[in-house]
């Protein structure tokens, strides 16, 4: 692989990447983030990057927990699931990050799982090729800090869970709502290009503005 990496502070990967993209719009910029990082401490940055539709690809490794700090619940820990800070189960409502960023203006939104790895690779590749803010939620198992206290005590059983609960969006469209209650919809959830929508991209708008003012 031939790329540079930049390690930022917790929650701020998107703003660092925004600065980078505006300074060097020809670069392909990928943000690797977590559910805590993207939805809690950096949640504001996520919605504003989506709103601007800036050409970044954010891949959110959603393991439903703050893994690094050893298992506190995050805004994506499902209700009633346990965490180090919720020994009797989480009582908070969750975000659906994909719906959140679609509503905020992202132009490519997809969800995949570590079990459906080939499809996940395809979704990420498309996200990178897409011009505009691309968001891919990648469900990833954390057997140590999430699985163990929630009855899934190995990486394999967690992958098995993903296999059983994930449903492709095309198949889901043929189901009734009650049949989807415990399902996780994967695949391309929103793609402005496929819908023939032309949502302006921020770094392009920015350079257009510079050119317009300079040409005056």
């Amino acid at each position: 692989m031939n790329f540079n990496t930049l390690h930022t502070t917790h929650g701020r990967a998107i703003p660092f990447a925004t600065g980078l993209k505006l300074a060097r719009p020809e670069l392909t910029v990928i943000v690797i983030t977590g559910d805590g990082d993207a939805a809690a401490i950096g949640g504001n940055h996520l919605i504003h990057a989506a709103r601007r539709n800036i050409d970044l690809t954010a891949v959110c490794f959603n393991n439903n927990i703050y893994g690094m700090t050893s298992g506190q619940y995050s805004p994506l820990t499902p209700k009633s699931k346990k965490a180090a800070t919720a020994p009797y189960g989480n009582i908070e409502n969750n975000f659906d990050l994909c719906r959140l960023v679609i509503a905020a203006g992202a132009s490519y939104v997809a969800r995949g799982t570590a079990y459906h790895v080939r499809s996940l690779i395809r979704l990420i590749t498309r996200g990178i090729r897409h011009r505009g803010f691309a968001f891919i939620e990648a469900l990833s198992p954390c057997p140590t800090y999430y699985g163990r206290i929630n009855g899934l005590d190995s990486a394999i059983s967690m992958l098995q869970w993903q296999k059983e609960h994930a449903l492709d969006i095309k198949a889901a469209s043929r189901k009734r709502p009650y049949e989807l209650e415990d399902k996780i919809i994967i695949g391309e959830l929103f793609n402005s290009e496929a819908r023939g929508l032309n949502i302006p991209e921020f770094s392009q708008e920015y350079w257009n503005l510079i050119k317009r003012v300079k040409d005056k």
Partner: protein
Amino acid sequence: MRKKIGLTGDGAAAEAMRQIDPEVVAVYPITPQTEIVERFAEFVAEGLVQTELINVESEHSALSACCGSSMAGVRTMTCTSAQGLALMHEMLYIAAGNRLPIVMVNVNRTLSAPINIHNDQSDSLGSRDAGWIQLYCENPQEVYDTVIQAVRIAEDHQVMLPVMVCLDGFIVSHNMEPVELLDDGEVKEFIGEFKPRLNLLDTERPITAGNLTLPEYFFEHKYAQVYALEQSKEKIEEVGREFGDRFGRRYGLVEGYKLDDAEIAVITLGSMAGTARVAVDALRGEGIKAGLLKMRCYRPFPVQELAGALKNIRAAAVMEKAVSPGAPGPAVFSDIIAALYRQSVRINLISYVAGLGGRDVPVKSIHRVYEHLQKVAASGEPDRILNYLDLRGWE
């Protein structure tokens, strides 16, 4: 009943928080503070405390939530480390400026970049001008005792200021030592009930907090806060004395170790004091008059107490785990120079920055500091004032 058990520094802090049973705790996890959050979350879940535990989405929100609850007139605590404390920076000034008696446990960890989770004191020392009382602990017992005392100090009506209790990450936070715990009732009685001076929820006496204060009044408001912090010294001493009278462990602003007849001394804060004691004992065994001065209270700065304790010393070294890039010297060293100048005490003082980013500070390294001090004492003049302990590629 009092009992002695093995506890880490984080465990000791959590245990003190359980006994204090504050109305509100708002936190966000960060290594090496996490163990406090987790233990406390368990106390809440088990119903051992009545606390409202708010797991917020960042440290900025944690201290904001604390400010809100403290303004509403309830006992409020939080804890953090490093990047978390840095993210709280804006709210640190809000808490102090609004005179909110919040107690925070800060588990000292270095600040990025480069990213590193290990110990030094650049986080809290870097927040020295935020207006908080800062107390540093050498071991888990001191953490436990100091957290309890901090509540009394903060909530005193003459003080009404936030208190930060600092302990070195991993070295104190994660190492287990015997800690004597007081009886729950004894702690309750010692801290008493929180009686807020003003209270946003007191509808009989409506107030407004956090107002815009323009040039006509801002300076006076600020000075009132500065004055309160200065005056809090007495309260810190009084509470430390009373704690000693009741429970047998006395605390002050500074603590000398074999200092009375010492010719050379190290001045330090936090866990390095524990290591330096071992070096002092060894040197005393060789007949060298070495001593140690531990700064327990860094803000407010104990100017008279520190200068008084050092006035007969021939050469002293300030060892601290933080740098002040571009400054004439690191923070604690520079403060001590100012304190000595104010008290007209002239001694040879050198600085040692040590242990940045978790580099170990073993006894043998502290030994070398004392050897350096012997040379300075003999020549009557420091050869080099600013030194970096065990730094490769320096000298």
